[in-house]
């Protein structure tokens, strides 16, 4: 136990160093532009989405699975809300439609999550494949519902969720911090959190320890679905539109954040603190790269594809530096246990 606590501390410390290093190098490269109030304000509105997605991925990674469908779930939930909000009569009784829209989105995402959980826990489909399939399925349903068009134009009351502030703190950030807090309590202070980690560490042992692994899987994916739904709400409130294929690049970034955060992709370990630091460092990098476009020496080389390149390179680099994982001692592949 002590050993584990030690590695946890050192990995968090290393992450802190990485975050500060990214911050320092971006400030050096960009100078005063990076330090402006506007840059920080816009960052605070941007990273909460990715943060909530990363929390959703983390939950599934902790149990030894992975939820690849989070982006699709978020978009589907966002669309469910958008259908309510974009009706012409929504503006007149805004309060009612906002509440309906939010609950509808959360119910949709919960249902999607439960479906994932059922596929993994009760049907016994490997998480990768199950969520790969539902990723297509949910995105497909969203496409069928919208025929590929965006559903846009919501009441102002709803848009505050994405663009407003609460005591000078952006509301998306408040939502992210609140979700992180709840998740942190859940993972570290409740029996459920303990059970999830146990299942991730060794599913067979978890079965023999008397845990109802199927129910746990159901809860895991329901939770990650719900988090994806919250992210979806933030997204549509911030952009004032919902689309079937918004933000597909978030998936890779969320996995990247989780890995950066020290979540063990083989299951069993991950902290909310890590996610907070990792998402910050990624946002510094992303905003820094964006600002570099205005610099003469780098501008022409920076575009969305170079960013994609950077995410990929960073993911591999971080894992390579942290590895090798103890592959031959531990489970070498993800398999849901059968009872």
């Amino acid at each position, binding site marked *: 136990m002590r050993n584990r606590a030690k590695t946890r501390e050192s990995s968090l410390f290393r992450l802190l160093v990485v975050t500060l290093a990214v911050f320092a190098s971006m400030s050096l490269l960009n100078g005063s532009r990076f330090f402006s109030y506007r840059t920080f304000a816009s960052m605070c509105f941007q990273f909460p989405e990715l943060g909530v997605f990363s929390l959703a991925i983390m939950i599934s990674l902790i149990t030894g699975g992975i939820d690849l469908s989070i982006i699709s779930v978020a978009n589907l939930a966002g669309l469910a809300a958008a259908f309510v909000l974009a009706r012409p009569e929504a503006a007149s009784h805004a309060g009612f439609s906002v509440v309906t829209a939010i609950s509808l989105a959360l119910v949709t995402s919960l249902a999607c999550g439960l479906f994932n959980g059922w596929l993994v826990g009760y049907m016994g489909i490997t998480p990768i494949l199950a969520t*790969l399939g539902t990723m297509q399925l949910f995105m497909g349903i969203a496409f069928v519902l919208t025929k590929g068009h965006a559903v846009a134009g919501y009441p102002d009351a709803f848009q505050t969720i994405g663009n407003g502030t609460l005591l000078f703190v952006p509301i998306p950030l408040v939502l992210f911090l609140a979700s992180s807090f709840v998740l942190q309590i859940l993972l570290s202070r409740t029996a459920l959190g303990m059970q999830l980690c146990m299942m991730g560490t060794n599913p067979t042992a978890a079965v023999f320890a008397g845990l109802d692994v199927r129910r746990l899987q159901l809860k895991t994916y329901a939770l990650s679905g719900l988090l994806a739904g919250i992210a979806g709400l933030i997204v549509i409130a911030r952009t004032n539109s919902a689309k079937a294929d918004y933000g597909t690049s978030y998936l890779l970034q969320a996995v990247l954040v989780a890995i950066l955060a020290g979540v063990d992709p083989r299951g069993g370990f991950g902290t909310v603190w890590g996610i907070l630091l990792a998402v910050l460092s990624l946002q510094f990098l992303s905003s820094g790269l964006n600002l570099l476009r205005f610099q003469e020496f780098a501008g022409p080389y920076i575009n969305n594809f170079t960013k994609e390149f950077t995410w990929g390179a960073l993911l*591999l680099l971080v894992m390579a530096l942290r*590895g090798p994982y103890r592959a031959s001692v531990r489970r070498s592949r993800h398999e849901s246990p059968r009872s």
Partner: protein
Amino acid sequence: MMIAAIGLANPVFYSLSNLFDLCKSSTVVGLFALGVLVVLVSGGIDVSFAAIGAFSMYVTSRTLLALDFHGSAVIAFLLAGIIGLSLGLFNAVFVAFFRLPTLIVTLGSASLFRGLLLGFIGTTIVNNLPEGMVRFSKLTMWNSTLANGTTTGLSWSFLLFVLAALLVGLLLQRTMLGRGIYAMGGNLVAAERAGFNIRRRQLFIYGFVGLLSGVAGIVHACTMRNANPFDLVGMELNVIAAVVLGGAGITGGRGTVLGTVLGVFLIVTINNSLILLDVPSYWQKVVTGLVILVSTGITARSRAQRVRGVGLC
């Protein structure tokens, strides 16, 4: 397997030209699928093959054009194969030496390759392919003239798919290397204890996937008569669905070439018939998703019953 076989019966109803079309469009998916099969059998997963294909295709076309090369398409295949092989080996290094989870490695490298291609190499579509590739794309094995006067033929590239299928089949069933790959997928630790050199096999597996992907990229460019760097990426799921549909288990140790080939034909047929039936294209994702879920669900259920029957659990 059963579903795949029933699905295969459908194309018989189609015309000869549609059958040839089907063969042609299944070649690229098929070449990718054979690579994915080998990875899945070994207990890993690769989602970077489409990015590798696009990369090798585009870089090869641009290089040959820059060199003003007029020779045969064989050189194009060789060059793309070598590029694919090296990208595959890049994956392999992370898997074999750092022992990282294959899904996350290839997710990262797919983004890396794509970013490298589109961010640093180019985004313009090459419309005038090197001469050799154009000649190759026009070659057909035999021609038949239809009632309305148009001629159609089976493209030579289909032969590549057949050859690759035979090669992978021999490799998996008849060689020590192949048996080792099955053993790895069954139980990595046991395979290691049994004396199989895991590291060397992983280098081979991911290199081989890269090689096949490079070749598939050139076939795609020849079929399309252009090299579009935005192509191919996005079809990963279709390919994986085809392989899983063909009975390969994602947890490794199971899968056959015949099943994969049938799975490929089924997936291509489904996508093809959706177009023929005038189903709006936005239904395609729903269908692919359902096909993956139903087929994996059936496999998972039957495996569960088998395990219960033996009384292991």
